[in-house]
């Protein structure tokens, strides 16, 4: 989705008169300690995502409604290993904790989440965090898992050692939440210095921090659980020389096959229902321009985009499962060798893969790449990956122009192959461009590739559901705002200027003239003027294209009664249709992506270069595709 992931601004609650009350709580912990799960558990659905001002680190905030304390705001800090200001993540955390981050209130208390499975190493973060002097509660997450695997810890002893309350919790199962409630009820802000009573060692470097952590865990009777044999056994297959890459390809292929073969009938069904609902509802309106505006303008445009909701949810479902299960890190490992040949490393693969959903969060995810030039190269190639906003366009034109032929006993469909080909095209363009950049203007020395592989976990219904709800509601909101406005605007442009109160022929309307005016530029690609208007409107967001087509063909009396797929055949040939899909594979039609690139690179230079480069490439490739189709099929 092009604007799906634009962070919403978050307004921190205004400081009340009662200054001794707790208001803001910070949640901090090492990566993979289960912090996000706990954040979701504590806040429920009431959370907002934004960016810290000036830096590219994501900020999540939410009222703690999950435990009935909506009066408290929970800030999720980035997952970090230490408070060393070496990485941007750690710098942001320190600034937030010390109240120096503009626009973010200073936390009154801290919840420190540690993974009980690796407590010794995780305790290295405890000393500097407790040393900040804020009321802090230490949460030993995954304690249930630790016990079943034979680990042990004495929480009371640990609380004495740290001078802070300690609770065993399981964020996944939701146990131990009452301990957090108790801690929050007890602390009212006035005993903020309590934690400072226990003298903690000043730990300067990793060696002394580890020594201290090892001593503490020894004194508190901590016994590390046996390592997860299951996870290693799974990796013995999934990272196998032959089965590993094979499994990877099968996963990718089945995702697209399911999105297409299950998503398409669902979309068609939804489309039928929506079309009938529109006709039925507008029967109450007089048969004049108003009905035309509501039905042909607004309803047809908006519903032609709405029908893609099932496919988009399916795609996000699969990406969510891959990410939450821990497989995405393995994919990065498998991909490292390929990524190296283009001058990047496996970490660049994760943003590239999540860009299949949306380039905006993918570009924000590039901040895990330490090398600045590698990161810029990844940002510049990410929009080539086939995001879900291209999906509606591909779906429409494939369904309209590619026959549903099946091979291998119906297991592989031609439509799926064409779809996969388009995905491959974007991927190859990204690789080639990265290679070009890394061997010219963004040449740099290799940075080490250090990747932590989380243990495999069963994705929870809760977290996947939350993700789908989030994406689905943003998609619907967009269909109700941007796309509605664009389609209404198009209807007006298509129905004016009026002669004696009668709507003009489409070619005589404002939009028709505009389209004809730009036709010479796109005629070599096999596009007609209606496609031209679609391209112009899709600069806002790719999926607007489909709504525009719906409105334009709905406004044309010759195609008004036809379904959009049939209507397209009226004045578009196979060459033009293929060229159009190729054009969409390459072109940068997404204002949200440009805005996020501008923010992440801190200048307009890169988004402008990126836009022009992608436009030229798209025009050239579409021209070649149209020409090739004509050559082969006449």
């Amino acid at each position, binding site marked *: 989705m092009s604007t799906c992931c634009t962070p919403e601004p978050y307004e921190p609650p205004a400081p009340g008169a009662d200054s001794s009350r707790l208001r803001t709580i910070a949640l901090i912990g090492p990566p993979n300690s289960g912090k996000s799960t706990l954040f979701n558990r504590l806040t429920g659905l009431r959370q907002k995502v934004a960016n810290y001002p000036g830096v590219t680190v994501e900020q999540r905030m939410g009222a703690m409604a999950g435990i009935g304390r909506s009066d408290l705001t929970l800030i999720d800090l980035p997952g970090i290993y230490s408070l060393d200001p*070496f990485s941007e993540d750690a710098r942001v955390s320190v600034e937030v904790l010390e109240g120096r981050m503009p626009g973010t209130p200073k936390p009154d208390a801290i919840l420190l989440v540690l993974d009980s499975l690796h407590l010794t190493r995780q305790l290295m973060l405890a000393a500097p965090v407790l040393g900040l002097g804020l009321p802090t509660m230490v949460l030993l997450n995954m304690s249930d898992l630790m016990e079943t695997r034979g680990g042990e810890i004495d929480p009371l002893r640990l609380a004495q050692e740290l001078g802070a309350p300690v609770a065993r919790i399981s964020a996944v199962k939701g146990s131990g939440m009452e301990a957090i409630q108790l801690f929050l009820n007890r602390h009212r802000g006035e005993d903020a210095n309590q934690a400072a009573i226990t003298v903690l060692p000043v730990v300067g470097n990793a060696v002394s921090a580890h020594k201290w952590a090892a001593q503490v865990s020894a004194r508190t009777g901590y016994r*590390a659980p046996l390592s997860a*044999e299951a996870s290693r056994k799974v990796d013995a297959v999934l*990272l196998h020389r*032959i089965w590993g890459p094979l499994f990877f390809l099968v996963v990718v292929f089945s995702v697209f096959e399911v999105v297409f073969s299950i998503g398409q009938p669902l979309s068609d069904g939804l489309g039928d229902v929506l079309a009938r609902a529109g006709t039925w509802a507008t029967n109450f309106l007089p048969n004049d321009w108003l009905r035309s505006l509501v039905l042909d303008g607004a309803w047809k445009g908006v519903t032609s985009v709405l029908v893609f909701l099932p496919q988009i949810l399916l795609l996000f479902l699969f990406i969510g499962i891959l990410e939450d299960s821990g497989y995405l890190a393995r994919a990065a490992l498998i991909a*490292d060798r390929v990524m190296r040949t283009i001058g990047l490393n496996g970490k660049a693969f994760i943003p590239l893969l999540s860009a299949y959903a949306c380039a905006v969060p993918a570009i924000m995810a590039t901040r895990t790449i330490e090398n600045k030039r590698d990161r810029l190269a990844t940002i510049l190639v990410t929009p080539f990956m086939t995001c879900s906003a291209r999906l509606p366009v591909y779906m429409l034109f494939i369904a309209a122009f590619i026959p549903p032929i099946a091979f291998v006993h119906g297991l592989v469909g031609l439509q799926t192959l064409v779809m996969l080909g388009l995905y491959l095209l974007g991927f190859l363009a990204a690789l080639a461009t990265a290679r070009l950049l890394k061997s010219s203007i963004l040449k740099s020395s290799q940075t080490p*590739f250090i990747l932590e592989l989380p243990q495999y976990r069963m994705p929870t219904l809760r977290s996947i559901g939350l993700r789908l709800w989030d994406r689905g509601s943003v998609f619907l909101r967009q269909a109700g705002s941007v796309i509605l406005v664009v389609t209404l605007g198009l209807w007006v442009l298509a129905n004016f200027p009026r002669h004696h109160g009668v709507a003009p022929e489409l070619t005589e309307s404002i939009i028709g003239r505009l389209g004809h005016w730009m036709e010479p530029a796109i005629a070599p690609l096999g596009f007609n003027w209606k496609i031209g208007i679609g391209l112009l409107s899709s600069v806002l967001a790719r999926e607007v294209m489909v709504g525009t087509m719906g409105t334009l063909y709905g406004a044309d009396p010759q195609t008004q009664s036809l379904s959009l797929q049939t209507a397209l055949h009226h004045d578009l040939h196979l060459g033009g249709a293929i060229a159009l899909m190729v054009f969409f594979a390459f072109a940068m039609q997404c204002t949200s992506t440009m805005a996020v690139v501008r923010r992440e690179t801190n200048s307009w230079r890169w988004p402008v270069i990126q836009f022009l480069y992608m436009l030229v490439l798209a025009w050239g490739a579409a021209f070649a595709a149209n020409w090739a189709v004509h050559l082969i099929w006449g």
Partner: protein
Amino acid sequence: MLSELEVGTTGIIESVDLPPSVHNHLMYMGFLPNARVEVLHRAPAGDPTVYAIDGLEIALRRETAQAIQVRMTRPVRPSATETARKSERKARR
């Protein structure tokens, strides 16, 4: 060198010779002197390699692992470690 250890073997870290920022990051992940490191898997292409250290699984490329000096621990037959693990697990119950 860590990169020379075979899959399934274990070594003890002696020294790390990398730029300070990288070195520091690795140390917070557990790559400290005298830490035990086990070679778990190699990626399908033969590189990077997954190492188990301090209960974590970390993947490093060959060129990074080459900068980490290790001494070999006494080679133990895999079946022996497996039995030892199983009996330890039983004892804990």
